[in-house]
């Protein structure tokens, strides 16, 4: 199964990733490793647009057939976009966790906060140790 974790993303200990959209905002999703643990995703409770989030704040819920899992904000910032495709196709989180299965976009308050997050190698080492 194991998709490579893309090297251009940043990662959290709670298995979210961030991708630079190039316009000051960052897309957020959950990793392939995380979707594998959740199993078939059937519903996503998205954060509301323009919500101000703090780092590690609970900002949504991903429901799989198995269980409900909280989603956390990777850093402090404002929600600028949400992926409404997930309303009708929540399974995109399973099929394309690093692509079409992105969940929301955030505009970080302090861009330096990104340095606190893991890169792909660190993340892989982290979850392999966790397992």
């Amino acid at each position, binding site marked *: 199964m194991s998709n490579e974790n893309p090297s251009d993303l940043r990662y959290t200990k709670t298995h979210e990733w961030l991708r630079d959209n190039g316009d000051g905002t960052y897309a957020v999703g959950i990793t392939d490793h995380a979707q594998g643990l959740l199993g*078939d995703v059937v*519903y996503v409770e998205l954060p509301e647009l323009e919500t101000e989030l703090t780092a590690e704040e609970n900002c949504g819920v991903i429901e799989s*057939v198995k269980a*409900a899992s909280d989603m956390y904000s990777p850093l402090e910032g404002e929600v600028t976009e949400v992926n409404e495709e997930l309303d009708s196709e929540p399974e995109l989180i399973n099929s394309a966790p690093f692509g079409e299965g992105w969940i929301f976009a955030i505009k970080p308050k302090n861009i330096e906060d990104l340095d606190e997050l893991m890169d792909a190698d660190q993340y892989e080492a982290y979850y392999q140790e966790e397992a």
Partner: protein
Amino acid sequence: MSDTENSKSQRTPLYDKHVEAGGKMVDFAGWEMPINYGSQVTEHKQVREDAGMFDVSHMVVLDFKGTQVKVFLQHLLANDVAKLKDEGKALYSGMLNKNGGVIDDLIVYYMEEGFYRMVVNAATRQNDLKWILEQLEGYDVDLSERTDLSMIAVQGPNARKKVASLLGNIGSKRAHTLKPFFGMQLDESFIARTGYTGEDGFEIMLPNEQAPGLWDGLLSAGVKPIGLGARDTLRLEAGMNLYGTDMDESISPLAAGMSWTIAWEPSDRDFIGRSALEKEKAEGSPMKLVGLVLEDKGVLRGHQKVITDHGDGEITSGSFSPSLGVSVALARIPSEAKDSCHVEIRGKQLKARIVRPPFVRNGKSLI
């Protein structure tokens, strides 16, 4: 009787087959069992649309033999084994305590004169055996636990056809004519037209050493392995209770959607729990078990609060229904409540419809 309570984790004779098939193994009642082999939703649909198989060898098979076995079971069980007149016929029943609480739910087969076979849950094994042995005192009945038998459930619209293809001429003919809720002995196997999915199919008990061979045969006949995850969503859609979740020793069958399993007649049959149930029936049960269909977006889960015009209740089992594409649940709510209610999910009140289970039978939506 074997004593396995103290061993850490047990494996069925099919353990290696699960690992071979990519099964994700988890602990279930002290057994290492497959929760899924990849996608639970795919496995669920495989059973609704074609044929899937479950290793249910962890379930407990008990053989009761002796001159007093019938009167004993008429005392032990809330349903009446006297209904079983033809050999092989099966009966679903609760086994109750004196307060009318459900100790376990089970299936009992009438094998032949003086011989009944019971299948009880794995998680309740120790408690069930203790209770049964206490009640057996004074009866001329021998109890033996059939740990030498494995059990494979093959379920789905094409399940019977695919099983029959492996049975040879005579076996195949006999299996074809087996009526629902009947079982038959075929060589060393016992094949019953029962299940826990709401689909047609067989449950096959056979000697442990033959189980891997049957599993491989079924695989080559196009039957796919299905994990415990899909077993749970299939039984929920079929409106079938899960012991320990939808009912337990503190809940009477009247409050667990199991009224139909209580044989009140003949009125002089003194089964355990009868007087408590008669009192509850006369006074009216305050609570009932119903089905819920979520009308808003979200997923119903066990223990969520249900709000009705007649007071609060609780979800006992809930999930997303892969067949229906909406969330469904079993819930215990005040008996007067009807039509609609709200379910509290993460502080929000979502609207749900109150329905009579099942939600799905033989591949068709009933909601």
